[in-house]
C-alpha cells in the first residue's frame, strides 16, 4: 500500500463522490463514443434505410412500408424465411442432443479422453470461411474425399453432388455446422456435468437405478439450466447464419439453401454483380432478422431471470 500516495488527506465526502462520478464517466466515455458511432447510429440507420428505396450511391427516397410489403409478396423471401426456420430448428435439436450425449459419454471417464476433448475442440477455433471451404472440397462431386471413400467401401450408389443437389445441400451444410460446433457445446455440457454432486449418483446406485435411469432422472434435469443456454445460443446463431452457407453454396442451388442472411447480403452487395444493389430492400430483410433474434434474446432473458431466482 506504500505505493499509493496519500494525495488528498482532507478530501470531503462530497468531493469524493464527485470524483467517483467524474472517473465513472471518464472510464466509459471512449467505449461509448465507439458504441454510438459504430453501433447505435448504424442501428437506427438500418431502421431508416429499410423504409427507403436506395441503390447506395444516389439519394435515398422515402417509401414507408413499401419494402416490407414487397417482401411479403417476394417468393424468394419466403423460401429464405422457411429455410432459416428449418436450419435453426434442425441445428438447435442436433447441436443440443448430440453434444449432450457425447458429454455424458465422455464424463463416464475414459483413458485418453483429455486428448479426445482437445481434438474435438479444434474445429471450434477455425473460422467459418475455412471450415466452409474445406468441406466444399470434401463434398466435391468428382474429386471430393467423401465420394471417394463411399466408392472405395462399395457404396458407390450413395455418391452425390452433395452441395449441388437441392435435396442434399441443406443437410450437408447442417452436418458441417454440427461438425464445427460439437466440441463447443460438448464442453459447455461437460462443465455442467462436473458441477453435479456425485452423491446424487451414489444414492441412486444404492437404490438400484441403472445407467439409463440415472441419465433420465438425474443428469438431464440437473443440466436443464445449461441446456436452455445451449438452445438459446443455437437459436440466435441459426437465425443469423451467413458465412457457412454463403461460402459453400451462395444460397443455391436455385435458392435451396437461401437463408435471410445470404438473401440480405446478396441483395445489398450482389453475388455475382447481376442487377443493381438495393440497400433499402436489404435493410428491410435485416429488420426481419433483428425481430427474430430479439425473440431469441427475450427467451434468453426470461431464462436468465429464472436462473437468478433459483440460485
Amino acid at each position, binding site marked *: 500500500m506504500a505505493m*499509493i*500516495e*496519500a494525495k*488528498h488527506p482532507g*478530501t470531503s465526502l462530497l468531493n469524493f463522490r464527485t470524483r*467517483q*462520478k467524474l*472517473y465513472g*464517466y471518464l*472510464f*466509459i466515455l*471512449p*467505449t*461509448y463514443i*465507439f*458504441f454510438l*458511432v*459504430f*453501433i*447505435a447510429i*448504424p*442501428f437506427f440507420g*438500418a431502421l431508416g*434505410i429499410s423504409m427507403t428505396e436506395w441503390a447506395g450511391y444516389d439519394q435515398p427516397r422515402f417509401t414507408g412500408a413499401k419494402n416490407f410489403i414487397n417482401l411479403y409478396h417476394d417468393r424468394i423471401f419466403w423460401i429464405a424465411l422457411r429455410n432459416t426456420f428449418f436450419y435453426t430448428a434442425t441445428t438447435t435439436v442436433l447441436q443440443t442432443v448430440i453434444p449432450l450425449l457425447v458429454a455424458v*459419454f465422455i464424463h463416464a471417464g475414459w483413458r485418453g479422453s483429455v486428448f*479426445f476433448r*482437445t*481434438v*474435438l*475442440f*479444434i474445429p*471450434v*477455433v477455425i*473460422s*467459418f*470461411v*475455412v471450415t466452409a*471451404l*474445406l*468441406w466444399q*472440397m470434401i463434398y466435391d462431386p468428382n*474429386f471430393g474425399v467423401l465420394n471417394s*471413400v463411399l466408392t472405395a467401401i462399395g457404396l458407390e450408389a450413395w455418391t452425390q453432388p452433395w452441395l449441388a443437389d437441392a435435396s442434399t445441400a441443406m443437410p450437408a451444410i447442417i452436418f458441417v455446422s454440427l*461438425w464445427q460446433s460439437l*466440441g*463447443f457445446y460438448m*464442453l459447455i455440457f461437460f462443465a455442467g456435468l462436473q458441477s453435479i454432486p456425485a452423491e446424487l449418483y451414489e444414492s441412486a446406485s444404492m437404490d438400484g437405478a441403472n445407467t439409463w435411469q440415472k441419465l433420465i432422472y438425474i443428469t438431464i434435469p440437473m443440466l436443464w439450466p445449461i441446456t436452455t*443456454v445451449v438452445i438459446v445460443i443455437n437459436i440466435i446463431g441459426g437465425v*443469423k447464419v*451467413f458465412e457457412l452457407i454463403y461460402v459453400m453454396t451462395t444460397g443455391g442451388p436455385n435458392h435451396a439453401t437461401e437463408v*435471410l442472411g445470404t438473401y*440480405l*447480403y446478396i441483395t*445489398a452487395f450482389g453475388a455475382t454483380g447481376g442487377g443493381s444493389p438495393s*440497400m433499402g430492400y436489404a*435493410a428491410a430483410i435485416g429488420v426481419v432478422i*433483428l425481430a427474430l*433474434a430479439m425473440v*431469441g*434474446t427475450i427467451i434468453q432473458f426470461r431464462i436468465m431471470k429464472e436462473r437468478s431466482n433459483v440460485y
Partner: protein
Amino acid sequence: MSTKVAPPHETALSGDYAKVARPRRLSIYRAQYIAGRLLGYLILIMLTVLSSFPLVWMILTSLRDRREVFSGILLPKELTLAAYKFILTEFRILDFLWNSILVTFFTVLAVVILATLAGYAFAHLDFWGKEIIFLILLGTLMVPGPVLIIPLFLQLRDFGLIDSRLGLILAYIGGGLAFSVFLMRSYFKTLPTELIDAGRVDGASEFGIFWRIMLPLARPGIATVLIFQFMGTWNEFIFAATVLHTPALRTLQPAVFALVGRYSTNWPALAAGLTISILPIVITYVLMQRQFVAGLTAGAIKG
C-alpha cells in the same frame, strides 16, 4: 486406421483382465463390462476420427503433387512442399497474414483497454445513469452482424474509411466492445469492494485504485476477453470482405476466400492456404488450451 489405434485399448483391456482374473464367479458381469468398455472406446475413436479426419485430409492434400491430387487415394505417393512454396511466393499469403496480425493486434489491444476501463466503472464506480447506460450497451448484443453491415458500410464510406484497415479496425472495436465490457464487468463484480474502500481510506486516487489494486487482480478476466476478441477478430469474414476492396489490403479470411476463385483447380495450393491460415489460431489454442476452453465456455454461459 483401426489397426493403428488398436494397441492402446488392448493394453487397457489386458489391464482390466489382470484385475478380473481373481473373482471367477463374476465373469459374466466382467465380460459384459469389458464389452461395454470396448464399445465405448470404439465410439470414442470413431468420434475422434470424424472430428480430425477433415483436417488431416486437408494437410495430406496440401502435401500432394498437383498432378496426383485426383487419383482418389487417401495417402499421397510422395510428399512435396511445392504447394506451400507456391502459396508463399505466388499468392503471397504472408502479406495477408500480416494484415490479419495488424488488424487483430490493434483491435484486441483497444478492446481490452477500453473494456477494462468501462467494465470497472460499471462494476464499482457510482455515477448517475449507470444502470440504464449499461443496459443500452447490453441491448445491442442481440443485434446480428448482417443487420449492421449495410449502414456501417455506408458510414465508413462517408468517413472515407472504406477500403482501409483503420476503418475495419474501428468497426471491429465498436462491434466487440459491448460483449467485452459485459465480461469485464462480471469479472470485476467478483472482486471484493473492500479493496476499493481500503484504497480510498488510504487516500489513493480513483485511477490509482483502478490501476494498482484492481487491474492486477483482473488478469483472468482480461485473459477471457483477450481470447474471445482474438478469435472473433481473426476469424471475421463479412465485414473484412465488404470493407476492404484492394486485394493487397485483405485480411486472411477474405484472402483465402478469394483463393478459391483464383486457383479453384489447384487443390494442394488451396489446402496449403487453408492450413497456413488456421495455423496461428490452432497453435495458440493448443498452447493455451485451458484458458481457451474456460474463456469460451464461460463467455457462452454468461452471455
